[in-house]
């Protein structure tokens, strides 16, 4: 996971197709690069290399490195760009689609992978242990019952999500 570098040898026409196939990626080609998304972005002022306009341009050009980059993962998904985009590209959704394509190809930053490993196992982000439930009881709150782990297992069995979690490369 590194900074995107423009390497023409790695440009492929498949990338746009792949992004468009993901939910939310449909409108990537509408983008006329006005930069409203980047001007609106709350992350960009603190992180120059998180530039949604640029990431979308790279993906639209078919620069495969965009999938290797950690940049799309810095999106806070606040949807301000999506509200303001004059071409209704839905930039936050396009970045989500790019992340989905990267994940499908096994490229997921550790922080995101760890979170989802928990979800795939216990159904939730954090385990609510006896101590937490004891604290809740003390406050007068009902206990949080665990999820049936078998149910979670069955729900995701054989899905693309399960493959991503298990680190199995999927067909591209």
């Amino acid at each position, binding site marked *: 996971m590194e900074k995107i570098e423009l390497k023409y040898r790695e440009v492929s026409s498949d990338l746009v197709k792949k992004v468009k196939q*993901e*939910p*939310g990626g449909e409108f990537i080609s509408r983008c006329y690069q006005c930069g409203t998304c980047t001007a609106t972005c*709350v*992350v960009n002022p*603190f*992180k120059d290399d998180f530039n949604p306009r640029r990431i979308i341009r790279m993906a639209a050009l078919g620069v495969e490195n965009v999938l290797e980059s*950690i940049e799309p*993962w*810095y999106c*806070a*998904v*606040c*949807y*301000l760009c*999506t*509200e303001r985009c004059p071409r209704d590209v*839905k930039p*936050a959704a396009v970045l*989500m*689609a790019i*992340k*989905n394509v990267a*994940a*499908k190809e096994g490229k*997921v*930053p550790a*922080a*995101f992978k760890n*979170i*989802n490993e928990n*979800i795939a196992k216990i*159904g*939730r*982000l*954090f385990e*609510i242990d006896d101590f*937490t439930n004891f*604290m*809740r009881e003390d*406050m*007068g*709150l*009902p206990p*949080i*019952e*665990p*999820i*049936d782990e078998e*149910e*979670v297992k*069955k*729900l*995701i*069995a054989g*899905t*693309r*999500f399960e493959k*991503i979690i298990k680190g199995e490369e999927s067909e591209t």
Partner: protein
Amino acid sequence: MSDDYLYFPGCNIPYRENQYELSARAVAEKLGIKLHDKPFTCCGLNTEPLDEFAALLFSARNIAVAEEEDMDLVALCNGCYKTLRVANKKLKQDEKLREEINERLRTIGREVKGTIEVYHLLDLIAERIKPEYIVKKVSARVAPFAGCHSSRPSDYVDFGAWEKLEKIIKLAGGKVVRYRDMDKCCGAPLLALSEELGINLARQRLLSMKERNAELAVTMCPFCQVSLDGLQVKAEQEFNESYDVPSLYITQFLGLAMGIKPEKLGIKENKKDPSEVLKRVVL
């Protein structure tokens, strides 16, 4: 309108923000809103970056549980609210997608039919609250913070969160202050990748609240509260600044005005101690 709702706790509230649930239950009870409990998985939000379809699957699983109980879902977290609200609308509108999801749900003996609605608790409170419930005035200068996912993406989530939050604050005796960039992200979603970025964003919101001499911030989401409350303490140390805008959940703020004891609202669980301000402003 029904009085019975299934409470959707999400991941964050039971793990580290139990005072939100405590104060929400106390306020809901006084307003005649009955919250029921069932084991729910993650709403799906955390899975979206990896696989939107799997995220929808988790949402649908929870929606199916609510349909089995024949009750609408009510969330306290903006993230859960947005995720379940969007999923529910998509599943109702898109028959093909619903069938695709149901095919998988049947493996766990569940199904989505499209029979329930998803609400944010703030919406239900705003509909029921009346001046006669208010027995004390919390007469502070208040910076409302409705967060992102209570009103965006607006194609799907649009219940007037900001207006309703402000209405409740005013009814409880507060003076609403507007401030720079008030509709921007609190920073919490960035914490997984970079604490530094998260703190920087939280600091921006706190600085602009301070600029308008806000005495309290009021939130309606555990992520926003973690930023404005927990990260406020951290940012004050790191930047050697003082913002002095303790943050309360709207249910804590309103609860005080409804005469509910601070212990029943979990106020001592908040990281940035609001007791000094509250001594001054609760009349």
